[in-house]
């Protein structure tokens, strides 16, 4: 089988202990300039508060630190190294220029409490980012404060709550489709609502009859991802919004899949009242191994009064100010103004592409997903055969008959030199393979990915154990996750202790 693997070959990887196991007393990796004020013996200055030692803290030279983390880095897969077809995660190229400009003096160094007239550069970046995101979404007002998508969801729900409460009744439930990301129901709970599951219809979309039935005066609104997690555009979106609005509810759109819409369609036109964006998905800010993210929340005029405090507002003279005087606001969801650095990077991304480029990126993302889908559909079961937007979702039903599950196929993909797709999500698909190539995969790489997926389907028929025990080429094989959870070891401790 190995001759089918063309995209990857085994590679030297160095072993590397924990940093604590590299420590030797007396070493340091940082030296300070001499102190230029009189020294203060800390024991005397701090008295009872004094601490004499940080037990176990490492002692390492700069070179040791450099080698340690460089070696660790080589154990990671990354976008820079190859295609990352993780459905719903939108792993697109992270332009390096964005890292450079985010580190410019002022943008990387201004303190959040700098007087406003001295931090106009930072404030204008926030205002420009807001204006661009509003143009892209077609919404009326926005807050960049939420730190990530899930916090954006929560913020959006709090806005709905505040609005309905002013109308007299905040209501009790939020409808959440069974295809939704897990953060949706979790955010509903934190916002003080109860999640009411909404079944999808046979197309994988919102079941209008079911929505009519469940949408009562007790329901505050609906959380809807569009395109949904199957990568299908909810064609009835206007009707969906009408049904919810007719019963006095509001519609929240999860913008996680906005990469399928930028420059093509604007949620503001769909009838949704509030949505969030993931700057770390659609707008290319780096995932960095799991964050930072950024989850701006955009709203229609109706919800503007409730946006988190402060809002960033452009003045007629061109200056930008922070407005803290917002008595109807839901309050603050994060200290300062959110992940400012992510706004810098997102703005750089938008400006680099321009309007035609953004549309081209969307077209490429959708074309890539459809291309992969068409080229592997004879090998994998496609439970919802509707036109796809930016991602496609297969099922492992056929391979399961040979004992091979989606997680196994995903692990085997690693041997072929690719990061796995998203496994087992959305939950409405049995053994889901959720594939989102994004626009950052060229045809030759897509062809290699397609070849790999086809080859694995064949392996599942011919030699299921090969797939079940994958990966075979990584520095560690499958890890004992059950053992890790049963008796958690969450930190290093010295051998003697």
């Amino acid at each position: 089988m190995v001759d089918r693997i063309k995209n990857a070959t085994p590679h030297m990887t160095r072993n590397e202990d924990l940093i604590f196991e590299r420590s030797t007393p007396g070493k340091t990796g940082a030296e300070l300039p001499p102190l230029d004020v009189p020294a203060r013996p800390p024991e005397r200055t701090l008295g009872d508060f004094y601490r004499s030692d940080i037990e176990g803290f490492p002692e390492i030279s700069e070179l040791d630190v450099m080698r340690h983390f460089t070696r660790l880095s080589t154990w990671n897969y990354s976008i820079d190294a190859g295609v990352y077809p993780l459905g719903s995660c939108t792993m697109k190229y992270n332009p390096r220029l964005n890292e450079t400009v985010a580190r410019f003096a002022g943008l990387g160094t201004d303190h959040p409490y700098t007087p406003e007239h001295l931090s106009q550069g930072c404030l204008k970046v926030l205002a420009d980012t807001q204006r661009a995101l509003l143009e892209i979404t077609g919404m009326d007002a926005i807050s960049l404060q939420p730190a990530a998508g899930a916090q954006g969801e929560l913020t959006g729900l709090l806005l709905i709550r505040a609005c309905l409460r002013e109308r007299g009744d905040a209501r009790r439930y939020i409808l959440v489709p069974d295809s939704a990301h897990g953060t949706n129901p979790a955010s509903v709970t934190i916002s003080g609502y109860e999640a009411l599951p909404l079944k999808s219809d046979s197309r994988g979309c919102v079941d209008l009859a079911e929505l009519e039935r469940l949408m009562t005066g007790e329901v505050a609104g609906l959380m809807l991802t569009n395109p949904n997690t199957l990568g299908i555009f909810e064609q009835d979106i206007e009707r969906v919004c009408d049904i919810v609005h007719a019963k006095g509810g509001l519609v929240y759109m999860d913008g996680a899949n906005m990469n399928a819409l930028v420059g093509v369609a604007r949620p503001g036109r769909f009838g949704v009242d509030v949505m969030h964006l993931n700057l770390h998905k659609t707008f290319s800010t780096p995932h960095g191994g799991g964050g930072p993210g950024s989850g701006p929340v955009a709203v229609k005029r109706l919800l503007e009064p409730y946006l988190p405090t402060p809002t960033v507002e452009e003045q007629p003279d061109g200056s930008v100010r922070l407005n803290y005087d917002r008595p109807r606001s839901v309050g603050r969801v994060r200290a300062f103004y959110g992940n400012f650095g992510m706004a810098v990077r997102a703005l750089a991304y938008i400006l680099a592409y321009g309007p035609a480029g953004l549309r081209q990126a969307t077209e490429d993302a959708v074309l890539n997903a459809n291309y992969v889908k068409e080229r592997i559909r004879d090998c994998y079961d496609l439970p919802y055969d509707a036109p796809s937007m930016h991602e496609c979702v297969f099922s492992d039903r056929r391979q399961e008959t040979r004992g091979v599950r989606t997680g196994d196929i995903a692990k085997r993909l690693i041997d072929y030199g690719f990061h796995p797709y998203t496994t087992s999500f959305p939950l409405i698909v049995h053994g889901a393979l959720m594939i989102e190539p994004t626009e950052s995969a060229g045809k030759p790489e897509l062809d290699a990915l397609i070849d790999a997926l086809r080859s694995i389907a064949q392996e599942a028929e011919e030699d299921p154990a090969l797939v079940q025990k994958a990966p075979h080429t990584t520095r560690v094989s499958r890890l004992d996750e059950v053992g890790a959870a049963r008796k958690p070891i969450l930190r290093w401790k010295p051998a003697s202790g």
Partner: protein
Amino acid sequence: MRYLPNSDSDRAAMIEAIGKKSVDELFDQIPADLRLRDRLNLPGPLSEPELLEFFEQASRESARDYVSLLGAGAYAHYRPVVIDALILRGEFLTSYTPYQAEISQGNLQAMFEFQTLIAQLTGMDVANSSLYDGSTATNEAVLMAMRLTHRDRVVVARTVHPEYRQVIATYVQHQGVEVVETPYAPSGQIDLAALEAAVDDQTATVVVQSPNFFGALENWAAVAEAVHKCGALLVSVITEPLSLALVRPPIEADIICGEAQSFGVPVAFGGPYVGFLATRERFIRQMPGRLVGETKDSQGRRGYCLTLATREQHIRREKATSNICTSQSLMALNATIYMCLLGKSGIRALAEQNLAKACYAADELGKVPGAAIPFRAPHFNEFVVKAPGDCGELLAALREEKIIGGLPLERFYPELKDHILVCVTEMVSRRALDRTIEVWHRFSRPVTEKVADAAAVG
């Protein structure tokens, strides 16, 4: 477009392969009246030099030429160049959350090291692998304490960062939770008598920060006694964790949370930062956020994986301990590298410099006629000083000298008119401090003369 890898001929071949006539057909599924007819009204495309110039313009309109004495939850410390050399490696920068452990061991081991470093620093048993920031970490600690105690009353010291308190208020407002704020004593520390009166058997948690928002160090033993007496949990908030290199950690606490931005993460106008949360072993199943655990692979080799995921939203959905999905891995890596570089001796030496400089500044500013140091509790690198006159005018005079002289506290504490929160890290030179002190003296002269004149007239 330079970021897109497909050529027009690639696109044409792909469109043909899927049996379509044009890429537009792929968008037919969107109802026609919902499709955008015009181009987005946005500037660009901009080339690389144009983008550099665009952001250089923003950089010019910043406080980049100013010396800053601002702290208040965001601390400017020197960032060794090694940090960016490492965190800009694509393998760290452009990787995803390490759900696929076999090809994420680098991130996982680094996160395990972060958890260990935070546990060592705080004196707790375990720490998670990061949360959004200090304010949300504090809120998560409150929610965790409520889950653990099944109580719904929260007591928060008024000396906890005001914006952290606002975040807590936002999160708990719809949970039927009562939030009570307790005052500070003349020392600048929490008023213990008021605290004892505020805590009752319905209190889930008491939230106390140290160094607190005024820079004052709290007496943890006394605070913990008052809290634990009623069966409540103590949440200790740390916004300047460098202090823990010299200051005894709040080992009496049940949860220690806060902000690790201080560890070499750029100040960057408020974010991205990195929250942390540490606690005792027995509470781990109620912890929010990702956790990395040590385990073995099928051949017995040591490895790391995300663990205890049954707490999290992607498994538990509406019953999860928290709705958080994204963490702050890259910033946690930044902080990890920073802590490793400084190490046991370096971090102490740095903390000693911060302490010495802040003491020097506090002593000298306290000597300015008409100025006063109102709070006498020991501090680390931050303290409050009362201006000899209108603090707005004083700060304006300092700005004339390219100095941002600190945070006027009246904004958050109306009773502290003309009080300024001053932070002095190793980044502020003696020369800049002496210039600051000189401006204070110059500013004080006419004020004290005026007072003297008034006295003479009277």
